[in-house]
């Protein structure tokens, strides 16, 4: 398994680590059983994400995807952040090994989950989150080739 330089950079020097007190939206996805939990805090002013922080228990790629995801949504509108896909996260990191794609899914979910929390708290209806289920499990532990 080989990580890109970008991944290693975000893993070793993660941006926006921490918590936000009185955050406007908090999302938590993953579970400790699978070895990964991502927690994301949003500070939203007007329609804009003015601050974002994360805490992650997980593999190197989970930490790197959390980090880059916070960068990618900071300063963006809620609407824009809603369109963050795991694919965009993977691309921004110059790729991820096949068995690590699900970590990027986790990052996308963490953002959505925090936005959902923000929407609920503010009684907003966010298009694109209707079908979103943050508890869905995207782990795929086995290779197709296994006998």
């Amino acid at each position, binding site marked *: *398994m080989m*990580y890109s330089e970008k991944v*290693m950079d975000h*893993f*070793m020097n*993660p941006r926006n*680590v921490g918590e936000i007190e009185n955050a406007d939206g908090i999302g*938590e996805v993953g579970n*400790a*059983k*699978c*070895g*990964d*939990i*991502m*927690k994301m805090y949003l500070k939203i002013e007007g329609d804009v994400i003015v601050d974002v922080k994360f*805490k*992650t*228990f*997980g*593999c*190197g790629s*989970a*930490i790197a995807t959390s980090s880059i995801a916070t960068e990618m949504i900071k300063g963006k509108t809620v609407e824009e952040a809603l369109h963050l896909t795991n694919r965009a996260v993977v691309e921004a990191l110059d790729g991820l090994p096949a*068995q690590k794609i699900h970590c990027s899914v986790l990052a996308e979910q963490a953002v959505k989950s925090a936005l959902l929390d923000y929407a609920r708290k503010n009684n907003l209806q966010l298009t694109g989150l209707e079908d979103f289920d943050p508890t869905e499990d995207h*782990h795929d*532990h086995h*290779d197709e080739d296994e006998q």
Partner: protein
Amino acid sequence: MKKRIYLDYSATTPMKQEVLDEMMPYFTEKFGNPSSIHSFGREAKQAIDLSRERLAKAIGAKAEEIFFTGGGSEADNWAIKGIAYANRDKGNHIITTKIEHHAVLHTCEYLEKNGFEVTYLDVDAFGHIKIDDLKNAITDQTILITIMFANNEIGTIQPIQEIGQITKEKKIIFHVDAVQAFGNVKIDVNDLNIDLMSLSAHKVYGPKGIGALYIRKGVKLHSLIHGGAQERRRRAGTENLPGIVGFGKAASLASENLEVHIQHVKTLRDKLIKGIMEQVNYVRLNGHSEYRLPGNVNFAFEFIEGESLLLSLDMLGIAGSSGSACTSGSLDPSHVLMSLGLTHEIAHGSLRLTIGDFTTEEDIDYVLQELPKVVDRLRQMSPLYEK
């Protein structure tokens, strides 16, 4: 140059120079096929005979009881399937443990799909099976008991002598995966009543891709690899001549140096354990404090995850492992750690550092200086950690 500290000797070892030196002539000069009649073949055959004797001597066996294989996994597969298929008419029950290497576990699972029944013994919090569990598991259908000598992840050493007494009394064939124990524990197959034993060269400073199965004289089993008449018709395939030569040398060195080796790695191991325990909170040592491979350290650090720990250490030039190397392609927590009763979170946060002959005291000092900082950094990022 960047520091590179290798603390993953249980995954594999570098070859010793003496081993390489002994192998060198067999690549380009003495390259004959040992089955050939001519002089090239005869010198190859002689080299193999010598290695077989060296290996036999190292474990108290006879030369004709040593059969070379392509590695430890092949030896495990051969022993287990070979005994199972050869004894189908006597019974269909196999006993093993929950903490075996995958080469044993997945082979047993394969046999389960083919009409065999397998009992997987539990282990206690330190990784020991209970002798009473074993006794209770035996039925009149039991044809094989396969239990590892020492565990590759947590280093726990099983009571092989006691088990051998039982299998001897009950006349059940006893296979031991000694891939990790060999070179780290004194082994005499007769004292221990072992009927079959798997070995692998690359764990004892020998070459990769060569292993051996000890088969006690008189024990019958099916072949795994059929074909030519090599290895007394029991394991076909042109012999890995340089590999066998290297394994022979490595085995000789391992038994000659056993005491010195144990002393060296144990001293460093104890220093590492003590140092970390003193500096870091929320950490436990997985495995047994006494019945433990001399070079094995396995820590569980709470609140953090193994891969990110490994990666961080790797950036500092420290090479360790979480779980066994073979399973690191998987995202599941180690089956061994789970069998000890650890929670998922803690199993995920485990780090194995294994010490070998080339490890120095400076290496350990460096780890003691860096590891606590890494753990702290990751904990700061963890949503599970509340100071």
